[in-house]
């Protein structure tokens, strides 16, 4: 059993079956328990570890249905509406769940009913485990009546009050008129009762949304080697392709879930830049992902364990996709090439994104701002197939560059020798090397955007008089940018931050970018 410190005494949190048989209960103090049975072994409770295990188990239980919800602290709720025939009936499903969980070392009780509350009650307190979907209300009442009131999931105070009034079973509540009970115990009691009997519907909130399209395959023997796994992925991709074609859609995000027979699940997710339904391309993207994983984990990139016995391919996001058109006119060569070139680029972006991560392949988009760092933003190429040209006009700002070719992510502080108040730098020291300036262009004054309000925390920090060296970002200051060339022919973009004034602290200089 597990123990935890509750209100400065060690109490028992959970007891296993043997301890329960001996008469120990949760909530007892450890001292009492040890007094009764000196030789008992107790472990510290680990609520986080238990929650993590429960989450993993819920993930694995998605092999039965994609809609699985956590029922803390020790239960899982599955919505198997319409799926029980896949397992040969409700009895067989309950039996399979119980055996598989027992094989993993858990002691589990499973029940099926038409409402979540009824299932909860039957699993914990009921003798029969199946409440068929087409039971009449009278039959349901007969089934659930003998259960104790704790099956309604009421809190302890209410249960105590009901026990004092002599009401111990669900039958007792059902047969009595509602009004006096509601007056004495509140509306909560009857709300639960209605939910139990199906008079009001409460949905479960599954951990993951049900995907739009699913194809899956179950194997009698678990798969271990990579070739059969890839072959089955290809077969599933073909089925998925037919399904998508029938609905006229293509997949943008796909997930392959490989369920191990011993309780773990391995997910592989890929994203594409255009709707996709070609099975060969889908398999290729999955292969790239597996290659990337095998670079990190040489022997077992898929974490096979004892093998996979269910493989499922789900489409998480789909978009309408028409049949590819082929243009037939005199300039057919150009149209053909254009169309295929765009498709080729999209395929390259998909492949690079699958292996390196979709965020690492980017394209640039212009922003309406004069602050140089934010003038262009990099967006993942997969989500930006069509971008307008950044510069509409050809370069007309003369033949001298206005912006550098490379920009440092963080401007580096430099020491300069410059005339005050706003003269250009005559020499500067950057990365411990002294540079003499022989030609300079500037200053270009870039002021912060005055129309943006300062964040509240910056304002309050400044009003409170922030300590020097504090880690809060100071408000943006005006920058004077210079394009400087040194004696070696290297050209830099550096700036002075802040205007010189007797009250303000001395302005600092930074290196921001490099020209060719």
């Amino acid at each position, binding site marked *: 059993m597990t123990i935890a410190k509750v209100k400065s005494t060690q109490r028992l949190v959970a007891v296993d079956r043997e301890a329960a048989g001996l008469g120990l209960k949760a909530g007892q103090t450890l001292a009492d328990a040890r007094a009764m049975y000196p030789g008992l072994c107790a472990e510290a409770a680990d609520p986080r570890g238990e929650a993590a295990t429960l989450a993993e188990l819920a993930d694995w239980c998605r092999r039965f249905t994609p809609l699985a919800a956590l029922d803390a602290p020790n239960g899982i709720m599955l919505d198997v509406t319409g799926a029980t025939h896949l397992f040969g009936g409700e009895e067989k499903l309950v039996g399979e769940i119980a055996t598989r969980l027992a094989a993993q070392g858990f002691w589990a009780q499973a029940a099926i009913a038409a409402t979540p509350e009824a299932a909860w009650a039957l699993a914990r307190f009921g003798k029969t485990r199946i409440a068929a979907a087409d039971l009449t209300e009278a039959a349901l009442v007969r089934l659930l009546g003998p259960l104790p009131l704790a099956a309604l999931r009421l809190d302890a105070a209410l249960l105590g009050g009901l026990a004092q009034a002599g009401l111990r079973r669900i039958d007792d509540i059902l047969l009595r008129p509602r009004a006096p009970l509601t007056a004495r115990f509140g509306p909560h009691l009857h709300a639960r009762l209605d939910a139990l009997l199906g008079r009001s519907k409460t949905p479960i909130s599954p951990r993951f949304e049900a995907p739009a399209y699913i194809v899956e395959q179950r194997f009698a023997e678990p798969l271990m080697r990579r070739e059969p796994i890839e072959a089955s992925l290809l077969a599933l991709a073909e089925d998925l392709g037919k399904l998508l074609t029938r609905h006229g859609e293509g997949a943008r995000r796909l997930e392959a879930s490989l369920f191990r027979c011993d309780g773990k699940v391995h997910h592989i997710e890929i994203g594409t830049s255009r709707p996709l339904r070609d099975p060969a391309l889908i398999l290729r993207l999955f292969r790239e992902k597996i290659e990337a994983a095998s*670079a990190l984990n040489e022997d077992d990139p898929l974490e096979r364990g004892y093998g996979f016995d269910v493989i499922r391919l789900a489409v998480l996001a789909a978009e309408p996709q028409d049949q590819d058109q082929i243009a037939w006119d*005199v300039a057919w*060569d150009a149209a053909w*090439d254009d169309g*295929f*070139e765009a498709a*080729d*680029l999209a*395929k*390259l*972006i998909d*492949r*690079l994104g699958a*292996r*390196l991560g979709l965020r*690492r*392949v*980017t*394209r*640039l988009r*212009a922003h309406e701002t004069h602050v*140089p760092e934010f*003038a*262009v933003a*990099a967006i993942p190429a997969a989500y930006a197939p069509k971008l*307008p*040209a*950044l*510069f509409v006009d050809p*370069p007309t700002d*003369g*033949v*001298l*560059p*206005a*912006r*550098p*070719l*490379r*920009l*440092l*992510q963080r401007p580096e502080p430099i020491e300069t020798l410059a005339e005050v108040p706003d003269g*250009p730098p005559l020499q500067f020291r950057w990365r411990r*090397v002294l540079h003499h*300036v*022989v*030609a*300079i*262009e500037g200053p270009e004054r870039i002021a912060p955007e005055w129309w943006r309000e300062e964040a509240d925390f910056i304002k309050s920090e400044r009003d409170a008089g922030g300590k020097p060296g504090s880690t809060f970002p100071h408000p943006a200051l005006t920058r004077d940018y210079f*394009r400087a*060339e040194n*004696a*070696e*022919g*290297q*050209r830099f973009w550096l700036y002075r931050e802040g205007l010189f004034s007797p009250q303000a602290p001395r302005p600092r200089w930074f290196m921001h*970018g*490099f*020209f*060719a």
Partner: protein
Amino acid sequence: MSPGGRAAELSFLRARIARIAADGTLAPRFGGVFPRGQAFGVATILDKILPQGLAAGALHEIVAARPHDAAAATGFTLALAARFLGEAPARSALIWIVEAMAGRETGEPYGPGLRLYGLDPARLVLVHPQTPQETFWAIEEALKCRAAGVVVGEIWRAAKAYDLTASRRLLLAAQKQRRPGLLLAAGLAGHAGELSSGATTRFEVRGALSPHLPSAGARLPLPGLTAFAVRIAKARAGPAFAIPDKDMFWPVLWDPAKASFRDAISLPQPAFSRHRPPVAQDALLAEEALLIRPRIWSAGDDRQGEEHAKARRGRS
């Protein structure tokens, strides 16, 4: 079919056959080398040294001469990429693969800076691999793609792993699709002499003083056109070809108006003359200005500049 349509079809087919005959293979539209003698500009010094020009289905390496010249090497690479893209189909992409370490040390590519080379940043696809293996794989994949106009690969830590085999793989990928691959070996500054790979051409680039423009009233002049000093360390063009003057750094300027290189007469650091007459900017960029410029520098009391100019005129 209408007669007009048939004529158009015939001309189209003729052009296609001519292309096939010129290339010798059923290659896609882009793949020809530059017109003779115009790889870098019009009869610049680099064209004279490399008469075979720059091949399209080949791997070209660019190395910086010193660590601080990384930006100059990048600029030269992009200038070459702009030259190649001028010959490529209108919407082909420029794929720039930056290894993570290179981005941290020398700065990330900045879109608006591409304007100097006449490139629209909307054509750029930036790839950021983390490890050297990913970098090489990404460069190879990009070279195999038909839609890529030019592939620029920047390697830093991968410089150690870059040897004959790796470069041979990239070269084969470039040859198959007839795409130029430009490899910017950012982590190898100064070690161009020790590099041995299967690349077709190798350039070593350092920054050079740009021709300064007079500034109105300020103490220091304005920096002028972008200038590089380029050494051709290796050029493969057949057994009988040898690079003349292999250790010499040739100065070139990049002219954005024409999107080509041009020769620069390398001047020593000019003595500042305060009696310089004001000259309009376009006059400075005219072809003749480069020849009369020595006279400008000597328009004050600048004896040294005049002597230099005389010596150059006598030499050329």
